[in-house]
């Protein structure tokens, strides 16, 4: 219990250090430049304290429960996956459990990402509920799942990272011109928010574990890149979802109209 309290205090201090520069900047501009006190100061102070306590609790819980398991599992899976092959050559099919785990853990950690929850809530409010917060989070999570899985495939095969990223960028550019303009900024944003507190540590552990255990790969050179995959693919999946949803909507209204005419 005492140990837990000590760790909680330590994490709280860590979070505080993270927040202090932001608070200082906000206070300086509010009081120094605007020369006005904040409206509803009580709500803001309670809210900020809740955010701090909540984030500290969340992080300590993750460290206690999920990260050790995630890291052990990443190591065990990458160790056992390749051992079934009889030849010394690396065969990418031998690692299918790793791809499956990567997709599953990428999806699950993204759904729980607090930063993404915040952006999704805001988007739902601003769009007048035409963007559904839960739907957006699922679309982003599917993107991260596909990205991390493909990133693991890249580490196993040892193919150059830029090829994948350049192709992904070209796809995003084409999709941008096919989408409705209102969804584009939100889709671009969803690429950056996916990789925060929950996803980065687990995904990094997976990448480093994989690069260390696949013969011929070095953790230093091949372990990177999973975060990059996890930030580009959600843009694709959100834009893709918006394009499909719009096409389906248009097709439906056209059919209804035809139904009325005949």
């Amino acid at each position, binding site marked *: 219990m005492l140990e837990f309290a000590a760790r909680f205090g330590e994490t709280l201090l860590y979070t505080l*250090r*993270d927040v202090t*520069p932001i608070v200082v900047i*906000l206070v300086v501009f*509010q009081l120094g*430049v*605007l020369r006005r006190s*904040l*409206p509803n100061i009580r709500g803001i*102070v*309670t*809210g*900020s*304290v*809740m*955010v*701090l*306590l*909540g984030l500290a*609790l*969340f992080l300590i*819980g*993750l460290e*206690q*429960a*999920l990260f050790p*398991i995630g890291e052990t599992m990443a190591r065990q*899976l990458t160790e*056992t996956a390749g051992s079934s092959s009889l030849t010394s050559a690396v065969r990418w099919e031998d690692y299918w*459990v790793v791809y499956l*785990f990567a997709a599953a853990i990428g*999806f*699950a950690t993204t*759904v*729980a990402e*607090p930063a993404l*929850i915040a952006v999704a809530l*805001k*988007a739902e409010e*601003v*769009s007048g509920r035409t963007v559904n917060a839960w739907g957006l989070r699922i679309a982003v999570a599917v993107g991260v799942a596909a990205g991390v899985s493909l990133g693991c495939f890249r580490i196993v095969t040892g193919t150059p990272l*830029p090829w994948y*990223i*350049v192709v992904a*960028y070209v796809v995003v550019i084409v999709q941008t011109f096919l989408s409705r303009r209102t969804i584009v*900024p*939100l889709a*671009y*944003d969803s690429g*950056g*928010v996916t*990789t925060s507190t929950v996803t*980065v540590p687990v995904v990094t552990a997976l990448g480093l574990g994989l690069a260390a255990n696949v013969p011929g790969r070095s953790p*230093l*050179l091949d372990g*990177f*890149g999973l*975060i990059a995959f*996890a*930030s580009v693919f959600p843009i694709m999946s959100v834009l893709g979802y918006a394009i499909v949803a719009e096409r389906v909507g248009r097709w439906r209204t056209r059919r209804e109209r035809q139904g009325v005419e005949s």
Partner: protein
Amino acid sequence: MRRFALSVGKQTLGALRDLAPIFAVVAFFQIVVLQQPFPDIADVIVGLVCVVLGLALFVEGLERGLFPLGEALAQGMARKGSTTALLAMAFCLGFGTTVAEPALIAVAAEAAEVAADAGFIGGSQAAQNQYALEVRAVVAVAVGLAIVLGVLRILKGWPIHRFIISGYVLVMVMTLFAPEEIVGVAYDSGGVTTSTITVPLITALGVGLASTIRGRSPMLDGFGLIAFASLTPMICVLGYGMVA
């Protein structure tokens, strides 16, 4: 007080739903694929309770504190009408929240290790620390400039895709010329600059600005700051790798 308890209770249920996929994935792989029991099951359960309560508190606090704060500030600055002050605040927020970001510190240290391994810098600890510090400063300035550019875009109503697409093209071209070893680190650095507290605040800032300035739509103009903040670090780390 009762209303407070009620809303926290509601958030707790929401948090349980948010975290259910993680629990399911970990349990499935642990029990079915690896066929091993959980180590220290008591620790795990205490941790899970912390995670659920923490997420509930965080989301509730966000709606009470961080969102109103960011929006009030954005609206105040927009009404004041001083572009210089607004851009100065944008730079400070971007720089200030990034320079101390734990994920960035980790990536900068890795970048220094890669650079030392490839022989760009000396292998000594001092040289590596120096390099890591420079990478951090470069990225923090990059994020500061990104938020400035993003706010300027909201003020002027420029379409976002031109910026992002030019950024992508720049990244692709620089990839051809940058040392191969730095490319992976550079690509990853885009994802690490946006922390859990910065994201809600920056989002509220953008949406608040776009909804105060006449002729801007919050949906079309309010979002996009995060996108800028994840693109510029890539460009800057690639550029730094080419120069240093």
